[in-house]
């Protein structure tokens, strides 16, 4: 992304949290899982899938109690769809 996009311009960055909301993380991960579970063929382009494979175990650290289950479900769906 452009250097210009990464810094606040006219006004200083407002005092918002620099941490993600775990509820938002959960919503996004469950949405991705739902797309995978509903699909008969891989719904993501290769690069998007590669990104998810990398960040899925990282992101799931925000949800420590659900982490193992999220990783297991994601791996299972990717294995299923890549075999189809």
């Amino acid at each position, binding site marked *: 992304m*452009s250097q210009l996009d*990464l810094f606040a311009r006219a006004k200083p*960055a407002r005092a918002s949290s620099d941490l*993600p909301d775990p509820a938002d*993380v959960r919503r996004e991960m469950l949405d991705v899982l739902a797309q995978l579970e509903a699909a008969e063929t891989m719904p993501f382009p290769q690069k998007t899938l590669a990104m998810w494979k990398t960040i899925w175990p*990282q992101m799931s*650290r*925000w949800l420590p109690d659900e982490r193992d289950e999220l990783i297991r479900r994601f791996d299972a769906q990717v294995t299923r769809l890549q075999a189809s």
Partner: protein
Amino acid sequence: MRVHFDATRIEPVSYRPLDRRFTYNVREYIDFPKPDLQAAWAHLNVALIAKNDGTGLGPGAWAHSMVPDQHSFRGSTGGWVFPLWNHAGEGAGHFLADGVLSGLARAYGQAVSAEQTFDAILALLSATSYTNRFGRDLENDFPHVPFPSELAVFQRAAAIGSRLRALQGLALPGDAFRTARLEGEGGGRTLAVPTPRNAWVQTDDGAGTVRLTSDQALRLTGVSARAWTFSVSGYPVLYKWLKARDGEPIDRTQQRDLLDTVGRIEEIVSLCDSADAVLAEALAGTLGRDRFGLPARRAPAAALEDGDEPA
């Protein structure tokens, strides 16, 4: 008009890459005092300087830890200054746009600091091949930052950027990079550097010698070709550093500063190579703009395949 002299207003500034000067920061003595920049800078800051067009070979950005001249990126045609720290009480403490740190933290599964992010940006834009690889995009846009999807790659970039930031802020170079030596006699002489073409002569050891006086009584040896030719968008850092001091006495302070400067350049060149390996890893898997809540780019980067870069 009489203006009272105030010695406390003599302040160090980042005039050019690795070239610290002093300014008398009193309105009556400065043509373009850049009050917005000075206000944002406050008492302590660090900034990236980048250009929105015409970025040339060398690092795509430079970090200044003293108030920079707006032309400090390369010596002319200005640049954009991106301070990191926001000292305004109501601010977030930094000038990074909303969504950047939380977007990275979300993808990496752990908190990411503003300083780490600044350093990672600096490293990725300083990678040796960056300005070659994206030369076409840089003709009319700011450098784009390919944030890696893998936390470990981001951390490697941040570590390299941290050292780059230190060196560009005039930290002393590591001993391994102090390969340059002064040979000959400089006492009583003044610096007289020839034209760039004639100033550096390659020697048998693969490095080179820089003539510092018109009679060649004093020479700088052990200067690698890459350090000598190291440039920031067409600004040859070492040659310009020397040329700016042409005619000055070569005293002990000058000699020490010169050796420190060469060492810094040697280490920066090495770090840019290390950053290049990290850039290649980053480009193998990047985070898209949507992960930071940013809208899609207006036009795809011509030098990239779709998806190779964070859009």
